[in-house]
Each structure stands twice: as structure tokens, then as C-alpha cells.
């Protein structure tokens, strides 16, 4: 299903709506500033900005596509020759809608839609944006520091609990899972078993603890995986 048009429908039918919007766009590009109802201004805005984008491109194909909406060649000429170059620096936001009071008669909320022709005010916005990013960075850093402090607290806590669990003669596993130097026997904390290097399940075991040799593991209360016969260290 196609996405429905944003905003209210205008006129008595699709063709009528297209005509209304085309006429509004023609008037806007002719006079730079038109007064209409808020609903129509809001519907006109995306169409007008798209046409300005075509004008910025400025080639024949773009001109022909604009001509399908705006039938007045004089207005299209003005759009391509005067308005397009004015908008060259502007990254979108070519129109501005300002609300004015309701209309007498039907009390419809009215608005002025105008082309933003003045040169892009770069300095102020850039300064503002830089300030904003700086503030954001500061906030971010503060948050990160707080998070780090918390994490450190948590780490010290966990480390404390782990160190109490760490059996005698064992070394906690390094983060990347490689063996600490001098420690070759893997200890599995979940099963309470140890694996010497080269034994059957050695490679697939994830070691929580590392022992120097089988005796140390046994002294720490770990059992040989698959029986003592399978966990005999190769002395050679």
C-alpha cells in the first residue's frame, strides 16, 4: 500500500488538488511570498522545495520536469535564473511558513509562506552548533566517567568475590582465553574437572582457572576429566 499523503486533502478531487498546489507554487515563485491558509501552506511546502531542488540542478531535464507542474514559462525562468542561484548555498529549507491570525469570515488559520532568499547565516548557526556539540561532548564525557566509575566499582566487587572463589594454586583465565605463561592445565569451574594439555577435551574446554600441573589442580579440589588415566601429563 502506498504511503498516504501527509496533511489534509485539498479540493474536490486528485486533479483539483494538483491544480491548487500547482497554482500556489506558481504564485509563490512569482511573488516570493504568498498568504494562504495554514493547511495549504503546509501542503505546498514539500512541493515547492522539490521544485527549488530542480532549479538548483538547472539542466534542461530538470526544467522540463518543473514545467510539468508550473505551466508558466516566465515563472519557471525566474525560478531557474533568480531563485535557484540564490539557494545554491542553502542545504534545504528553502521556504518559511509564518502563522498569522485567523481570517475574518471563516476563522481559518492563515499563514504566510515565503522563499528564504537571504544568504545563509553561517557564522551564528555554526557557532551555535559547535557550542552544542561541545556541551554534548562534555555531558557525554561526564556520563562516561560516571559509568566507568560504576563499572570499576562493580569490577572490584566481582573481582573480590572471584578471588575468594579462586582455588589455591590457580590463576583466573585471561580475557582472550589463552593460557597464562607457565600454566597449562585447564580447570572447568562448572564441572569441577581439570584437563591437562593434549588430553581428549582440552581444546574444547573453556577454562575458568589455569593450573601449573595436574597435582596443583587436584590439590585445589578439581577432579581429572574422564578419570585419572586420561589426564596423565606427558612427562616427555
Amino acid at each position: 500500500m502506498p504511503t498516504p499523503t501527509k496533511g489534509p486533502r485539498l479540493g474536490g478531487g486528485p486533479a483539483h488538488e494538483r491544480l491548487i498546489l500547482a497554482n500556489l507554487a506558481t504564485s509563490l515563485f512569482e511573488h516570493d511570498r504568498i498568504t494562504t491558509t495554514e493547511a495549504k501552506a503546509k501542503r505546498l511546502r514539500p512541493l515547492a522545495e522539490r521544485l527549488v531542488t530542480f532549479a538548483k540542478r538547472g539542466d534542461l531535464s530538470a526544467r522540463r520536469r518543473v514545467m510539468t507542474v508550473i505551466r508558466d514559462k516566465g515563472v519557471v525562468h525566474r525560478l531557474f535564473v533568480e531563485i535557484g542561484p540564490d539557494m545554491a548555498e542553502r542545504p534545504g529549507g528553502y521556504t518559511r511558513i509564518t502563522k498569522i491570525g485567523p481570517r475574518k469570515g471563516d476563522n481559518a488559520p492563515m499563514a504566510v509562506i515565503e522563499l528564504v532568499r537571504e544568504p545563509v547565516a553561517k557564522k551564528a548557526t555554526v557557532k551555535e552548533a559547535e557550542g552544542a556539540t561541545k556541551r554534548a561532548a562534555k555531558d557525554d564525557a561526564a556520563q562516561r566517567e560516571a559509568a566507568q566509575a560504576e563499572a570499576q566499582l562493580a569490577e572490584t566487587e566481582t573481582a573480590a568475590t572471584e578471588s575468594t572463589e579462586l582455588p589455591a594454586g590457580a590463576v583466573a583465565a585471561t580475557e582472550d582465553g589463552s593460557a597464562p605463561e607457565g600454566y597449562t592445565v585447564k580447570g572447568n569451574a562448572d564441572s569441577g574437572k581439570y584437563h591437562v594439555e593434549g588430553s581428549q577435551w582440552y581444546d574444547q574446554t573453556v577454562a575458568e582457572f589455569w593450573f601449573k600441573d595436574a597435582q596443583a589442580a587436584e590439590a585445589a579440589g578439581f577432579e581429572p576429566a574422564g578419570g585419572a588415566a586420561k589426564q596423565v601429563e606427558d612427562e616427555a
Partner: protein
Amino acid sequence: MAVPKRKMSRSNTRSRRANWKATVVATTTCPQCKAPMQPHIACPSCGTYKGRHYGVAERTEHQG
């Protein structure tokens, strides 16, 4: 077509209409001319909005 069976009493009519209330329009002070204006709408007395002037926004006698 469905039609009412009984006449509506004055009391019922009036108690229904008693709930039609107008709400106060929120206003702010125009930074340009200090007259009351609705927020986000160009000032009706001097026609300015965010430092720009809109002649059509100014209220005339006929517009009330």
C-alpha cells in the same frame, strides 16, 4: 427515520448547554511592541515575528 419520543425538558437542555464553555486563549507579550499576542503567531498589532515584519499579519478595523 428515528425521531425523539418525548419533548426535551428545559432543565435537560439547559444542563447540556451549561457545559459549552469558552477557553482562555494563551497569550504572550510581543517583544517588539509589548502588546499581547498568541505564541507562535505573528503579532497582530505590529506584524512582527522573530524580528521579521509581515504586513498581512496586522489587524485592521474590519477584521475586529
